[in-house]
């Protein structure tokens, strides 16, 4: 592991005791049950691994707030993606997040190329309660947006922007609505998300394209089984749309294990398949699959 990758984790570890001492004075109540605050998904939004959930991030209740920092390391066949971010949940109603993506191409003819983007998320819970509403079919429902700003393509010679690959825009905004429900009597968590997006490969290859410039409505879901009060397993599916001739984008899925030993740390480990990435451009037509490891520090 390179030092520059370790640094945010070290900073978070050093900050942790200070923050946990501070949290009592500034009223973070850590009042939710373990696992019910969700995790930081790949885009930094409170959710699972690939899919945003309707829960508000952090362990703060409706009278309080909570926050967390995450570091996610994804290693696929020919691509490594690091996601580092920070999120705040307030009054179990609002969520704000800021996340940085750094993608390194580790294989194919594009080896050495680096791509980055910043993602700013906001989410509002509009109805229901995922945990308390055990006597109703109404899930917890939230709406949200992910504002994505491309950081450019590096080490690829004259290629510096996704628009040169056929994308219509460097930057874009995803809108989503999520419904999350814990079927406690069955120890199941089910989440369904609909996302309105023009993004190519989460936005790392820009927005819209030569094949299809419009936005599409994508379906995403998480099904999790609660094994213990601190441990869950499950799977996710996320449809992604193919707008670029240079790319052959398909759906992504994962199988995960999530562990929350306490309210300060949680870990998600998954097998992740993001589908084909830039197959037509690189002539490497394998699915890009590999490991997903995310550590989250909460306070």
């Amino acid at each position, binding site marked *: 592991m390179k030092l520059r990758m370790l640094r945010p984790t070290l900073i978070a570890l050093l900050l942790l005791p200070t923050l946990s001492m501070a949290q009592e004075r500034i009223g973070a109540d850590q009042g939710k049950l373990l696992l019910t605050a969700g995790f930081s998904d790949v885009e930094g939004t409170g959710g699972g691994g690939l899919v945003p959930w309707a829960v508000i991030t952090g362990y703060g209740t409706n009278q309080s707030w909570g926050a967390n920092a995450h570091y996610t390391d994804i290693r696929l066949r020919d691509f490594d993606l690091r996601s580092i971010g920070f999120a705040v949940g307030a009054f179990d109603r609002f969520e704000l997040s800021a996340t940085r993506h750094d993608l390194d191409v580790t294989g194919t003819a594009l080896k050495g190329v680096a791509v980055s983007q910043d993602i700013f998320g906001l989410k509002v819970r509009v109805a229901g309660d995922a945990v308390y509403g*055990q006597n109703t079919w109404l899930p917890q429902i939230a709406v949200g947006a992910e504002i994505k700003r491309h950081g450019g393509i590096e080490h690829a010679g004259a290629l510096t922007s996704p628009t040169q690959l056929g994308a219509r825009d460097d930057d874009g905004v995803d809108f989503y609505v999520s419904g999350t429900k814990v079927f406690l009597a069955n120890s199941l968590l089910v989440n369904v998300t609909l996302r309105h997006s023009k993004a190519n490969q989460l936005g790392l290859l820009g927005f819209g394209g030569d094949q299809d410039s419009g936005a599409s409505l*994508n379906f995403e879901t998480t099904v999790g089984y609660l094994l213990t009060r601190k441990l869950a397993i499950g799977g996710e599916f996320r449809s992604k*749309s193919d707008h670029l001739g240079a790319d052959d984008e398909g759906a992504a899925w994962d199988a995960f294990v999530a562990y929350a030993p306490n309210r300060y740390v949680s870990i998600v480990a998954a097998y992740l398949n993001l589908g084909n990435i830039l197959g037509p451009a690189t002539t490497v037509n394998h699915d890009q699959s590999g490991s997903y490891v995310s550590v989250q520090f909460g306070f």
Partner: protein
Amino acid sequence: MFQSNSGFKAMNISKLLTTAGLGAFLAVATTARAEETLFAQIGGETTLKATVDTMTDIMLDDERINFTFANTDLAKFKKLLYEQLCELAGGPCKYTGRTMLEAHKKLNTNNAQFNALAEDLYIAFEKHGVPYHVQNRMVALLAPMQPDVVKKGGTGIPEPVQAAPTPAPAAKP
């Protein structure tokens, strides 16, 4: 406006079905013993009574909520809690206490405290070896009480208990 969703390809649908199938399998697996009452799955009177005792001990050590039980008759509390859980779980009991709304009227309970008590119950069940999926079935029956137990804007600090009014001397004829 919306393009047809090119994300839904035959291959992707099969993956989706796998995910849905996993969920359905787990749902069936956890409800296979549905014919047995929850009360029996917990381990009947012995385990449930022991769990209530342990939960009360944990709760009295739990600084998030122990002060709200300062004026509680603990023997009565344990008896009523057992009755309530037993009845909810399909056991041979009848809850004889006040409604949840009435019982929490002056406690100003907030969500963090409601969740803290649920957590203490989980830990007590764990200590008595009740399987987690069975614990969840019990908590699933308690969770809908949240609107009656939790007071909107509840401070978490109970209202001071008023001294019992001294009976007025009987009027002489």
